[in-house]
Each structure stands twice: as C-alpha cells, then as structure tokens.
C-alpha cells in the first residue's frame, strides 16, 4: 500500500466525517425549518466579526482547554472521566469558601491559594470514582455520572444556604448565588472593554505542563502504558491501580481549576449555571483534539466558537441554543466511528483495490508476504 494512498485515504475519511456531522446536524435544523446554511454561517463566523466576539470565544476556550487536558490525562491512563461537571462544581465551592474566608489576603497569595483549593476540591471529587474503580472495579462511566448529580445538589445547597449572598436574603429575591467575592481574587482583564482574563495564560501553561508530564516523564510513560494495555503494564511491574487514582485526581483537579478560574476571571461570584455543559463539552474537545495538548488548544477554540455562536443563533436565526449539544453529540459519534474506519487496515486495502480498479486500471498489486 503506497504511503500516498494512505495519507489521501485518511484525509478523505476525515472530510467525509466532517460532511456527515454537518449533514446530521442539518437534519435537525431542517426539522425545525431553520435556514441550514445561515445557521452554520452564524455559528462559525458571527462571533469572529469583532473584538468582543473573539474575546468571548477565548473566554470559553479557557475552561474547555483546562478540562479537556484533565480528561486527556485520564483517558490516556485508561479511565474515562465524565465527572468534570461535578468536579468543577466542587472546585468552585472550594474556591468560594477560601475567598469568603480570607478576603483580605494579598492578591499574590489569594489567587494561587484559591485556585489550589479548587484543584484540591476537584481532585477529591475525582479521587472517589478513581478509588472505586481501582479497588472495587466500579465502572467509572457510571460513578462519575452519579457524582455529577450529587455535586449539583451539593452546589445548590451551599449556594442557597451557607454561601448565600446576605444581600439576597435581605432583598428577598433568593437568587442562589454568593456575594461578590474579594477583589483580590480577580484575574486581570487585560483587554479593555472585554472580559478576557489572565486565566488564558494559565490554560496555555497547563497545556505545556501536560505535554511534558505525559510524554517526557517516567510517570507519564507509566500512565500511558496503563491506559494502552493494562495487562501488559501490570506484567511490566507498573502499579496500575495507583496510577488510575492519580490520573483521576489530576483530571478532577484540572476541572476544579477550570471552575476556580471561571469564578476568579469571569463571574467573580459563585452563581448557578457556571458549569453549564463544560464537563461534557470538555470530552468532545479532548477527542476532537486527538487527546494531545497541541490539538486540544485549537479544538477548544473551535468549540468555544460553537458554543458562543450557538448562543447567537437563538437571536439571529431562531435556532434554540440546545442545538450546540446536538452538534457536539454528532461530532463525538462521527469522531469515534471515523477513528475505527481509519484504523482498519482491511478496509483500507479494499478501498485501495477498488480505487486502483476504477482509476488506475491496473490489476491489484501482489501482496508482500509477511
């Protein structure tokens, strides 16, 4: 099989995948009578038309990147983390608690401390499914989902109770949210007139760190071995359960950090709906980015674009914002199917035979014996 055909085949399959995804989305759009072309156009281009749009996309890129990085660490270690939503929520609670308890600490201390708290909170929430899988063989797919729901309830409890903004109580409006947190927590908004904050640099730094961790350290090597072949790793002396737990804690920590940064950079108080789907979107970003930091950053940008664009479609073309979830689901399905198609050498061989028969007119090449 020629190398040229291999590359061409891969590209061809990917293009086919993108078209399929857009077609599947188009079916739903057609069902609600929307203008398919205009909708896609709005989603993909509208946000990029001005400074605010671009920074809003970057704003969403930050948590998406960080969460996807965490999910990548877990996935590559052999454990699928669907619990980022819950881990993020717990991280936010931890950060808020620190900010409420120590509002007068200087910025240089409060910010790292609060983010660290978020990391610890998320790590704890990630530890639970990790330990359950390592010690009791509980499927992480199920335990993380359950923990999401539990975390959501905890979150609401704290926001309606102990962390409720005293102002809400007196005004009687009862919006579940904390008070505006200490200004010492604020991450700098470095472009005037926009909301983009220095968390962006933290996200990029984390991407670099993960790259080194996974591919340049012995720890990352062991984690990847455990994820690639758990049995062979065990036989190779790698203590798989330990690394499973570590991976889930890192994954949870990253989700927690993402939550902290969202609070410190964007909302400046704990409110409802902060996590809103980032946990699941993070999974799509990780997959779309090929489970590698170099791919995750641009993938996060793309999905930030999708999410923000979808917000606009409600206003501009009357397409409900739920559409973004449809697109994400479709993209996941298409990606996993495509990966399998590309990895199937038998299919590639048949495709080449048919291609040669159709276009080159030569008989199928004699196979080289193994």
């Amino acid at each position: 099989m020629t190398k040229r055909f291999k590359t061409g085949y891969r590209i061809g399959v990917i293009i086919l995948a993108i078209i399929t995804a857009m077609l599947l989305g188009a079916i739903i759009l057609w069902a609600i009578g929307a203008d398919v072309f205009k909708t896609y156009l709005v989603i993909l281009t509208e946000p990029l038309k001005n400074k605010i749009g671009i920074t809003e996309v970057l704003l969403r890129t930050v948590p998406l990147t960080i969460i996807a990085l965490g999910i990548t660490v877990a996935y590559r270690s052999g454990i699928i983390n669907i619990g980022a939503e819950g881990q993020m929520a717990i991280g936010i609670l931890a950060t808020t608690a620190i900010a409420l308890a120590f509002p007068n600490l200087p910025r240089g201390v409060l910010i790292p401390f609060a983010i660290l708290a978020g990391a610890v909170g998320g790590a704890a929430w990630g530890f639970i499914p990790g330990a359950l899988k390592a010690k009791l063989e509980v499927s992480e797919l199920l335990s993380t989902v359950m923990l999401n729901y539990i975390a959501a309830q905890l979150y609401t409890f704290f926001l309606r109770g102990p962390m409720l903004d005293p102002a809400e109580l007196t005004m009687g409006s009862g919006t579940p949210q904390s008070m505006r947190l200490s200004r010492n927590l604020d991450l700098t908004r470095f472009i005037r007139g926009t909301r983009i904050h220095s968390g962006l640099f933290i996200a990029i730094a984390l991407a670099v760190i993960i790259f080194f961790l996974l591919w340049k350290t012995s720890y990352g090597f062991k984690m990847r071995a455990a994820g690639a072949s758990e049995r062979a790793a065990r036989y190779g002396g790698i203590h798989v359960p330990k690394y499973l737990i570590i991976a889930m804690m890192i994954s949870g920590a990253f989700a927690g950090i993402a939550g902290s940064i969202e609070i410190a950079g964007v909302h400046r108080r704990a409110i409802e709906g902060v996590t809103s789907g980032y946990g699941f979107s993070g999974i799509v970003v990780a997959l779309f980015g090929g489970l590698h930091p170099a791919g995750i950053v641009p993938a996060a940008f793309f999905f930030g674009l999708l999410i923000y664009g979808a917000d606009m479609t409600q206003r501009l073309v009357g397409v409900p914002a739920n559409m973004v979830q449809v697109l994400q689901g479709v993209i996941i399905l298409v990606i996993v199917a495509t990966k399998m198609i590309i990895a199937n050498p038998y299919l590639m061989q048949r495709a080449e035979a048919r291609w040669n028969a159709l276009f080159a007119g030569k008989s199928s090449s004699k196979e080289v014996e193994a």
Partner: protein
Amino acid sequence: MEQMTKAIDSLRIEHITKRFPGVLACDDVSLEMKRGEILALVGENGAGKTTLMNILMGLYYPDEGKLFINDKEVHFKSPNDAFAYGIGMVHQQYMLVPNMTVLENIALGYKQAWKGLRLDLQSVRKRVKEVAKQYGLVVDPDSYIWQLSVGEQQRVELVKTLCLGAKFLILDEPTSALTPQETDDLIALLRNMSEELSIVFISHKLQEVKDLSSKVAILRHGKVVFQGNTIDHSSSDIAALMTGHEVVLPHNDAPACTLGPMLQLRNLKVRSDRGHLALDDLSLYVCKGEIVGLAGVSGNGQRELAEAINGLRKVESGQILFDGEDIANHTPAHVISSGMGYIPEERNTEGIVPAFSMKENFILKDSESPLFSSHAFLKKKEIDQTAERLRKEFDIRSPNTDVAAGSLSGGNIQKVILAREISRNPKFLIAVYPTRGLDMGAAEFIHKQLLHLRNEGVGILLISEELEEITNLSDQVAVIFKGKIQKVIPSSEASRRRLGILMAGVKDDEEI
C-alpha cells in the same frame, strides 16, 4: 441443517487464494478428498491451514478459486451454507458458550428446535441420544460448559457437529490440549468414524499424522508443496517438507546444578480465577545455570504458577524463595527488581504494549531506572541508543525502533520481549510457551538464546507444551498435574511415553 444431508463422496478445492492485509494466507491451493479418507493437513504455524479450513466452513470468502462438492460447484456465504452440505468443524479454540448448557449450545445451531417463540430443547435431547448411540460419544446434556474439562468440552464439540448433521469433519489441532492417552482415545474414535465420514485434521504433530491419516497434504507459506499417501513417507520426510530444510534443534548436553538453588518453591497453594486450588501444595526448585522444563497439559496450573512467582497472583500459603528471599505476595515491581525475568504466555497482551513503539517496550520495566530517566524526565538519547542496539543484536526485523510493537510479526514480538528481558541481566528467567505459534527459524533463535543464558549461570524455568522442546533444552523435566509436581526426572530419562503417563496423572511410571 437437515439431519439427512447427502453423503459427500468427493470434495474438491481448486486454485483457492486468500489475502489478508499484508499476508498471502492461501496461494493457489488445490486439494481433493474422497469419502472415507482421513486427510492430514500439515504445516508450520502461519502456513495457511486454518485459513483454508475456515474458507471451507464458510467463515472466510476466497479471493479466487472454487469449491466443488460431489462435482457440483458450491458457494458458501456463511457457515450455514457449509452446514447445509454437511461440513462441520471442531475448532482449536472450542466454540462453546461457557454459561449455557450442552443442550443450549447444540440448540444454537439445531434449527429444528427453533419453533417460533418456543425453544424445543426436548428435540435436541433426543438427537443427542441418537448421536451418542451411533458413535459412542457420551455427554451430559444438562451440565454447563464451564463445569467440563477440556477433553469433555471437545467431546461436546464433536457431538454438536454430528448432531448438526456433519458428514465431513474438519478438526483443527484436535489434540493440542489432550494428554497422550486422551489423544490415543481420540485417534481410535476418529478411525471408527471415518467409515461413514470423511475427515480432515490439521496438525503439526507428526506422530499423529502417521497414526491416523491415510493421506497427507503439506502447506508451506500458503502453498501446497506436497500431497500423497501417508504410508509412503516417514516422519522425517514430512518434517523436512514442512520446513523446507533439515532442522536440528539445539540440544542441551552440559551438566547441571552445581551452583546451588536459585528458585525454590515450597508447598505453594494458589487459587485459580474460578476459585479452586490451581496449585495444590506444589514444591520445586531450580538451580543457577540450570533449565528445568515443566511439562504438562495446559490447564494444570502452569499459568497460575508463573503468575504467582511474578507477584501477579496471590499465594495462599507456601514460600517462593528467590536467591534466598521469600518473594511470595510481593508486588510485580519488587519481583522484577530482584532480578526475575519473565516471558509471559500471551505475548500480545502480556508481554508488550502493542500501541507503544518498540523502543518504549524495551524500557517498559525500566522507565524509572537511572539508565533511562533523571529526576523523572526520560532520557531520549539513551533510550534511542539502547533500542537500536537491541534491535541489531536480536535481529528484529523492522525499519526502525519507532514502529508500533503490535504491528510486528509474532516472532519479532517475541524477540522484543526476549531482548528486553535478557538485556536486564536477570538472575532467573521464566519462559512460558516461548515458541508457541512461531516458525522454526524463530524457535531456533530463541532456543539458542535460552541455552546461552543457562551457560552464563541464569536459572530458567521453561513451561511448554512441546515435549520435544522440553526434552531438548532441559536439564531436568518436571511434570505438573492438577497443581502438583508429579515427578522430576533427568532429561535423559524423559521419554515421550514416560512423560505422557506422568502428564496424565499416573505416578507409577517406571519403564518396563
């Protein structure tokens, strides 16, 4: 499938060719069989025997060629079509559903029992009784498959194929999991059955081929290199035709065990996955610079033994003394760092990480060693250099060391594992079925390496099903049966007959 399938008087394969990605499995194969014949299909692993039979069973489609039954051309789109003509196959890995009963397994294919919304197991029971009477094959229809021994499961497979109306029986390595005595029983049974059925059996065991078949066909690299009457040729003729050259496997002639014990197993009790005692008060020792071959039918505790020694399985009681230290129930990492080398049974899933590159597999056990990392950061240059050196030293066929290990051929994968283990300078090596599925050339290479290690003072526990391999390489031969060591005898006294008796569990084994 009908019970009354027409008898198959002749079956002809003409110019069958089958390709897989990167492999030409069958190359213009033509064979003919007549009723009442027993054909032995012989060849090394990878010669194309199983593929050819799978085509005959309708599991694979040939890229070129035709099949003729009773001089009529046939096309098989699925096993159902093959069944309709009365072709049945007993695979090397039994095709039985473990958590269903014998009756249910047979009912899966016995379409007469499928009465719409009702599964008629009574009719299956009746049919099983018929077959039992006709061929003398008795099975318990209500037992679950997982409760049966390997020999009993094979009998179920035979009964199943016969219940489904087979008139042409294909057997793939039928004796691979049987003791020599069970083998003799099977051969007698098959000879009996050949009066009504035609039989093809795949084997690489030349003694069986001589004992059972009337005709023999030899495949090499997917081509038929020879066809003829068995009676006209000797085992060594057939062996030479199989491999294409005279092969003499390396022989162990040096004296042993002068340096003291390296590995001592004392009264080991270890449980299997199913819960029963796989090792039942097992004791054995291996000296430095000695090869002890462990002979036994697969399933008598070999796997659990290797796992227990390497820290991969819990030892309920007993000791494993490795160079004086009891390593029982320590972590695999500890055992590895004590100097234990291990070539596991399943090279693809236990020996290498298939998705990792060759060089990553070389350092699988040593990623934290100061050789390859400093302050947790991997030393790329050292890793690359070591990998390249090992690749050359062990003659591993691949363009470079970055290729995924899983894409290598079986022999090369085994070489990667061997290279890794040997380069770590182990004090002891456990090799489990090290040449299974490999061609003669690769086997020869591995045997030479093992003998070399032995001469360097490394102790080796060789676990194998190939009696010839064991007797050629070992200083001492230990026979394992139902989790105990039956006896340990010097290799010079280990004849096939004597080993066979021991492997079947009989203690009284002295030569007459």
